[in-house]
């Protein structure tokens, strides 16, 4: 009988070697290991053997049974491995996904400016785009027929209304609305009667800033702007203040940052100047305080205003302001992933 068992094992080994598919394996498994295999028959016959022989044959039969089961498991694992290989995923294929759009670069820059000032404790306010001449000019210490109006040719709507030429009238509105001390920025749209060309647009954006508290000084202005400019443009950039003139600030300053390419030395990209103008600023003029009923002896403040287009042009290296307003997808898609 031991011979028959050995032959049974050899037959099994032979057939197992032929197995290629799971069906083959199931067939072999049924034939050699299941209830319908010859194993139960061998067990039956074992009972008829004399005790001595039964022990030897029984041990062998058990070994063979375990061996067959083990070999079947191995084979199954092997088949599984093979099958997994056939389910190969081509990871170089593009992912299944939705297309993404993009934020507009002007809004990106505006959002970033707002976020920086928010983190510095500034409140965000808005003002109307249709303004009164009074708020836009007189209240800001720019009387009619003043040469300072030359730079701000306005679109008039009649009845003393115009499209605001800067966000500065919001200073007046904010001061009337809030009680000092406060820190506020006002992002918004402005209009000037400039022909549309590479550096001018009749519609543009500004962000106005206003801080009012007792004892505010030029140092406070400088410190705030330095923090802002470095965050927006990068830690390496230098900030330069130089005197200028705005009717609603005194002292007034123009703020420059060092050119990102030459760091202030002068190169072709900054027109050899080394510096790029980013905003106008200054301490709030006492007359402006008087115009809103504040006492300039007791309260001080600083204000600043920057052109968003200009900053976006500097930041992204955009040469023509009109690109912002054309909204060509080829241009807009360059800003994917920002914001």
């Amino acid at each position, binding site marked *: 009988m031991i011979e028959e068992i050995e032959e049974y094992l050899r037959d099994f080994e032979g057939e197992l070697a032929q197995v290629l598919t799971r069906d083959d394996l199931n067939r072999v498994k049924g034939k050699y290991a299941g209830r319908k295999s010859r194993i139960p028959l061998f067990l039956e016959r074992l009972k008829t053997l004399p005790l001595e022989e039964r022990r030897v044959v029984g041990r062998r039969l058990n070994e063979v049974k375990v061996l067959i089961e083990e070999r079947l498991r191995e084979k199954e694992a092997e088949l599984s491995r093979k099958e997994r290989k056939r389910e190969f995923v081509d990871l170089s294929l*593009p992912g299944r996904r*939705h297309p*993404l*759009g993009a934020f*507009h670069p002007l*809004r990106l820059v505006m959002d970033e400016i707002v976020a920086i000032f*928010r983190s510095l*404790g*500034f*409140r*965000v306010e808005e003002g109307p*785009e*249709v303004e009164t001449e009074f708020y836009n000019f007189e209240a800001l210490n720019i009387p009619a*027929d003043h*040469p*300072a109006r030359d730079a701000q040719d306005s*679109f008039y*709507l009649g009845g003393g209304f115009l*499209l605001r030429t800067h966000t500065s009238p919001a200073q007046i509105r904010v001061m009337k609305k809030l009680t000092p*001390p*406060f*820190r506020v920025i006002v992002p918004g*749209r402005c209009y000037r*009667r400039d022909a*549309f060309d590479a550096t001018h*647009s*009749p*519609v543009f954006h500004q962000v106005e800033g206003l*801080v009012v*508290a007792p*004892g*505010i*000084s*030029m*140092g*406070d202005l*400088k*410190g*705030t702007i330095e923090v802002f400019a470095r965050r927006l443009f990068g830690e390496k950039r230098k900030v330069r*203040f*130089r*005197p200028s*003139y705005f*009717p609603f600030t*005194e*002292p007034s*300053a*123009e703020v420059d940052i060092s050119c990102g390419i030459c760091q202030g030395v002068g190169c072709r990209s900054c027109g050899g100047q080394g510096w790029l103008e980013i905003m106008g600023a200054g*301490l709030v*003029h*006492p007359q402006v305080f008087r115009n809103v009923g504040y006492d300039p002896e007791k309260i*001080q403040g600083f204000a600043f205003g920057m052109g968003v287009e200009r900053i976006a042009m500097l930041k992204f290296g955009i040469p023509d302001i009109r690109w*912002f307003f*054309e*909204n*060509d*997808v*080829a241009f*807009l*898609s360059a800003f994917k992933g920002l914001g």
Partner: protein
Amino acid sequence: MRVSYRMLKRFLPELSLRPEEVAEVFLNQGFVVEEVLSARDLFCYPLLAGTLVEAHHEGLLTRCTVKLGEHTFQVLVHPSGVPETGSRVLVGFEDHTPLFLPVRGERAREVFDFLLPLPPFLEEGDDVYEALIGDDVVFEVEVTANRGDCLSVLGLARELAAHCDIPLVLPRMHCAEKPIHHGFRLENEAPHLCPLYTGRYVTAITVQPSPFWIAKELILMGMRPINNVVDITNLVMLEMGQPLHAFDAARIRGNLVRVREAEEGERLVTLDGEERILRKGMLLIADADRPIALAGVMGGRDTEVGPKTREIFLEAAFFDRVSVRRTARALGMRTEASARFERGVDPLGVMQAASRALALLEEMGGEVASGWLVSGQPPFTAWEISVPWELVVQRLSCEVPQKEGIRILERLGFQVAQEGATLRVRVPSWRPDVREPIDVVEEVGRVYGYGKILSSFPSFPFDPGNVPREESLENRIRAHLVHRGLYEVVTLSLVEGEGVNMLGLEGEECVTVLNPLSQEHAVLRPSLFFSLFEVVRTNARRGRRSRGFFEVGKVFFRKEGNFREEKHLGIILWNVPQPALWKEDPLDLLTLKGLLEEIEELAGAGYGAVCPGRVFPVFEEDGAFVVSSPEEGAEPLGWGGKVLPDFLRRHDVEGEVYYLEIRLEDLVVWGQDRPTRDFAPPAFPAVSRDISVVVDASTPWAFVASLVAEEAKRSCMALEEFVLFDVFSGDPLPPGKKGFAFRLVFRAPDRTLEDEEVGRWVQKLKESLKQTGRVVLREEMILSHE
């Protein structure tokens, strides 16, 4: 304002800064140097000394022969511009063409007004640059509107004097006067517009080319030499900032000079040959009969100084800045003189400038009649400002030594008296912009240097408030739309009037700009549609592809006479063949509605009812809707629709375009104060059942949905929600029919529902649907092939 380094040096003999340092000082004190030019950029090159060897009259002109080494040049010159034969004269070359007015870029011409005489010490053929110009440098300086005083060499030199702490030296202003009788009288009928008018009479004038040094300085500063008299008035204006005017005294009728306002329609031919029609109230200078000059703007042609002039009347006056500004603007003639009057000239410098011009006229051989003709007073009262030094230090955030501050102010022309820690500052007549202590602070800071300001950070307790809901919602919506594949755009809010008409909006409700620059930007948009459609058009024209665009921006209109501006969100979807990857995502009216629902959900606003309705005539009749407000009688929340194919074809846009506009401010208001929902997770399981029904193709889903909702309510079913998951038609359904498949989800808050109970409810719902006679259950329908 242009100024040359050597001219500055004429006022500042001790100036030791190099030209590039001068430019730096200007910038640091508030004067942007727009350009630094070399003298060679302004004169033609080479520039040589020739000799006038022959002058021969030919009719009204003189044919001059100029010798330069072995070359001779023939040139026609006006007789008054011909120096003595044998003089050295200037010959410049540009592209080998001889030029006798040596301004760079000057075109060759047939007749020259004059030959410029050179000092006799030059030899024929000498290089004039080397001998007379040197390597001079010209600064183009931008002067801010408050600093009229710096539209002069004197003013800019004073700035440098303050920086370098060196003395300022004024040019010679003295002349010998002669007791000449001339009989001129002044009448000032408009003292409110001309507080000070002065005149001087000079005779024995010979009008001829200016000496080279005057011509050179004018050219360096951007003006053309004309003749000695005119050049002197111009040079003095550039030196001192005070415009002067010389009249040919012989042409002034009645020996009378009147300052008066114009009558409506009066006419005057100005120096540039234009006939000006004057408006009432414009200030002019007249003689006994007629206007002879536009005060502060330009002289008249008839009294112009010309070759035959022998005697002149020299005007120096202080004209009201607003009056000059208005006149110049009304006539569209901004001149060097008007620019200076507009910003205000030095009231005490008026007669000083006249004296300077007289000194130069005398040098040219003029005889100056003694005595001033004066009307009025210099409009100036001295004022003092008390400035506690502490204020300067505090506001500037830097420890400026008081001594240094005093020195700066004094060099700028302020008189400073020290009273302990307070300065009493007397403001000079040329600085009307300095009125308050803070102005003095700026003066000190400017010269001391903004670079020395110590940075600090303003810290004080202030609660900026939360991020306004409006801003955060706007940003979340923007981000959502970007994630849905749309591009954010920013467009001009000024649009063409025609666009507004095509939307059928009433013209009178729109806000129109009274003085547009072009018809393209003449109306404030009452909707974002034009702008967004224009973006699609631009991209279509350029062959670009996109799923669509959106913009958050203001729209404008008039309501009951008042201006209104509202913040809107505009979305435009563009269904054109897209790259393959995008194919499976359809773009149609329901996509648009889906976006609307997503936005409403983001705002927590609940859904506004979407009803058919066409707001813009560019939408398809059947494909347009209005989103009504949940508030009774309120304005709609938004509107939208499919744009007419005809309209797209007319504008060369292929594909389909869908548009949605939402009034963002209302959306914000709706969503706020929304009661918070019950957060507790449900304790008992839900039971779901699906129902499939068949209806006529024209029956809307809302019909079925409302039946289900009503019945569930009436019968107090624990129906948590029901969701449509399929709409189907075609085989095996007969034509004209469609099916809805929806899932009912039941859940009781307090127990597990029994199967039997739910079964009863579903049966009840099915019955009530059937009862309408318009709904057939899918399972009860006998289909053609069953």
